[in-house]
């Protein structure tokens, strides 16, 4: 095993709270009565609806097609009838068109996605594999939901020296990737081989934080059995190590230039969940119609990890975890650091959503904002080396171009500054607003 490493600049250690769900096996959830498939589940342009009201669709059938360069196809996750097509608001506040499908258990064919094509990897060219990934609508499953076929299409003149697989899962509460690594180790490794073949990576490293040593051992065991050219890099626990920039710094010691992409330093980063989705797409021809999601938080009766269909209303997911045992004070989609608080439990599960958390009053800090005391804590913890306190002052005074000149766009909204601010200043909210205004 390699020496344990981490990134150096900034970062914080929030309470992990992973023990609520990290021993809960992934449970498959039954189909809900209604499935809501949003057209915008990824970064980039929304997909365009390609079915109409009354159509009968099968599981895995394309219902929205990603037509722009950065976009992704979306698929129905069940067999059923298109009941309605209308705009909805997602849990992250994005308004998008969605296809409502009523599930039909009776006339559903039972043979979907059971055949496993074992030697497809050997017979296919990288281009063919990339096409399969594009058709399966695969996006980054770690949360950012960047379309995978765009990422793996290496621009001319660049070379992917490293493929770094992200098994960090640094957000508190979340254990979906952890369970996936334990329970689907071999499938993830197949997915990694597919990515490696597409991008032609020389070295493959999986980064896993030290609070998941059982997953590390499981990977090492399988890698040894199969003699795969893959290394495991254990990482010291530190947030936000799951961000690709920090992960690359920790694993290969290179820094992604400001405003640039990992490929500029010869690396591609992909999440373990994405690798698993790629395995399913390539060997079973199964598009992204389900994912593993952690339902946790102290307000949830039986926190756990569930394999749920994309489009399942969040209410159904929470009921599957036993419902609320006390009144939640806040419901969050994603992790507590970077996720979005939302209130509409009818909103559907999307491809990039790794967790749903119901937090109680005692989990949260409701103290009100006070004046900045210039303590400099936000500067110390910022992993991007920004000066949150000055940025916030500029934005507060609508000086967006001044904020831009202090590299506002480098902020990736990890929340380290807001988390450590003793005056409870909503720094990240300010930066999100500032970025939006600066783009105008």
């Amino acid at each position, binding site marked *: 095993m390699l020496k344990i490493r981490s990134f150096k600049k900034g970062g914080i250690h929030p309470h992990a709270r992973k023990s609520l769900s990290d021993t809960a096996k992934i449970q498959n959830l039954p189909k809900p009565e209604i499935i809501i498939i949003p057209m915008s589940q990824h970064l980039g342009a929304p997909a365009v609806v390609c079915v109409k009201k009354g159509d009968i669709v099968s599981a895995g059938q394309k219902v929205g097609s990603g037509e722009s360069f950065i976009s992704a196809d979306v698929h129905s996750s069940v067999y059923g009838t298109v009941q309605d097509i209308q705009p909805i608001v997602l849990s992250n506040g994005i308004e998008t068109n969605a296809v409502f499908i009523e599930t039909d258990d009776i006339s559903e064919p039972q043979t979907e996605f059971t055949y496993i094509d074992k030697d497809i990897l050997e017979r296919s060219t990288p281009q063919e594999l990339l096409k399969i990934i594009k058709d399966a609508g695969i996006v980054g499953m770690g949360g950012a939901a960047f379309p995978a076929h765009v990422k793996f299409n290496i621009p001319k003149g660049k070379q992917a020296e490293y493929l770094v697989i992200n098994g960090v899962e640094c957000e508190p509460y979340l254990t979906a990737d952890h369970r996936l690594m334990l329970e689907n180790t071999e499938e993830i490794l197949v997915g990694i081989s597919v990515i490696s073949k597409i991008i032609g990576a020389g070295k493959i490293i999986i980064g896993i934080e030290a609070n998941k040593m059982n997953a590390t051992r499981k990977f090492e065991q399988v890698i040894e059995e199969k003699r795969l050219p893959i290394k495991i890099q254990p990482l010291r626990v530190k947030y936000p190590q799951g961000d690709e920039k920090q992960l690359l710094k920790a694993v290969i010691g290179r820094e992604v230039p400001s405003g640039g992409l990992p490929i*500029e330093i010869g690396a591609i980063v992909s999440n373990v969940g994405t690798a698993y989705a790629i395995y399913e797409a390539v060997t079973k021809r199964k598009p992204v119609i389900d994912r593993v999601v952690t339902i946790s938080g102290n307000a949830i009766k039986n926190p756990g990890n569930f394999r749920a269909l994309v489009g399942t209303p969040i209410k159904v997911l929470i009921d599957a975890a036993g419902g609320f045992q006390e009144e939640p004070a806040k419901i969050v989609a994603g992790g507590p650091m970077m996720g979005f608080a939302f209130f509409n439990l009818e909103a559907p599960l999307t491809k990039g959503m790794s967790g749903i958390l119901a937090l109680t009053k005692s989990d949260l800090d409701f103290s009100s904002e006070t004046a900045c005391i*210039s*303590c400099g804590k936000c500067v110390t913890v910022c992993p991007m080396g920004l000066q949150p306190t000055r940025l916030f002052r500029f934005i507060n005074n609508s000086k967006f171009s001044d904020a831009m000149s202090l590299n506002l766009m480098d902020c990736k909204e990890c929340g380290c500054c807001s988390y450590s601010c003793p005056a409870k200043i909503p720094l990240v909210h300010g930066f999100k607003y500032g970025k939006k205004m600066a783009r105008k």
Partner: protein
Amino acid sequence: MKIQKQQAMRNVLKGLTPLCLAAIYFYGWRFTAVLAVVAAAGVLSEYVLAKKYGLQMTESLFVSVLLFSLSLPPGIPLWIAALGIVFGIVFGKMVFGGFGRNIFNPAITARAFVYISFGVPMTSKFLPTLPGPDSWFPGGFAHWLSPLDSVSSATPLFTKSADLFNLAFGFIPGSFGETAAVLVVIGGLYIIIKKAANWRLTVSAIAAFLIMQTIFWLAGIRDTVDPLYALISGSFLLGAFFMITDPVSASQTTNIGRWIYGAFFGVLTVLIRVFSIWPEGITFAILLSNMFAPLLDYYLKERKKRKGASA
């Protein structure tokens, strides 16, 4: 009006408590009268202006009140103390837009004002301490004030007459709070451990001070005193632990800025002490350092690679 709760400021208040007790022990209960007058005047001036401008009062006010009171000589007339804090709060803080926006440390602004305006009561009448070799206890706890009729003496920075033991434990004439170097260090370490103050500021200030003082001492310039003596006499330690670490007026956005800021203060203190007509340099050293803090914040940014630069 509600007063904004600030945990960091509460920790500073706790760190200053031993010094307040020591002030009573050394100079008598009159310290509480000074404190009460300063607090009343400070609260009143902040209340009036905060109300007028729609701002909130903050707990940092009490830190300013304590720091200013501790920096006064024991015999200070009460009206001068009141005038000082009013100036400090109004012109040191509220005119800039209230807490968090002030350039100068309000306590030091107040002190500088009375120091320049009332030179005689501020510098010439340092009273001897009540406890001493003849009676260690109850010291000031049984008195209102050190006897005024006894011979008042000047600060040891002028006379260079005290020994190191008395300097370290405070048995020397001086301001209320600066005399006991040991207590200043204990309180200072407390606020550093509680992260109300950044250790880099204090360490760089003390290091720069010692280096500079040693150079002058070895070179024999203008009868410079030896570095250790200089370090623990006067209010340099109070300044290094409690005043330049005031987060608002310090340079805090980069670590390198903190090192430079602290060192700047240390060097300036020595220069003012050695070359100016003022025996005590820290008041002006702090104000000058405060002035340069925004400049340090502005020019010291993290160097970053831009897209397109060779990776």
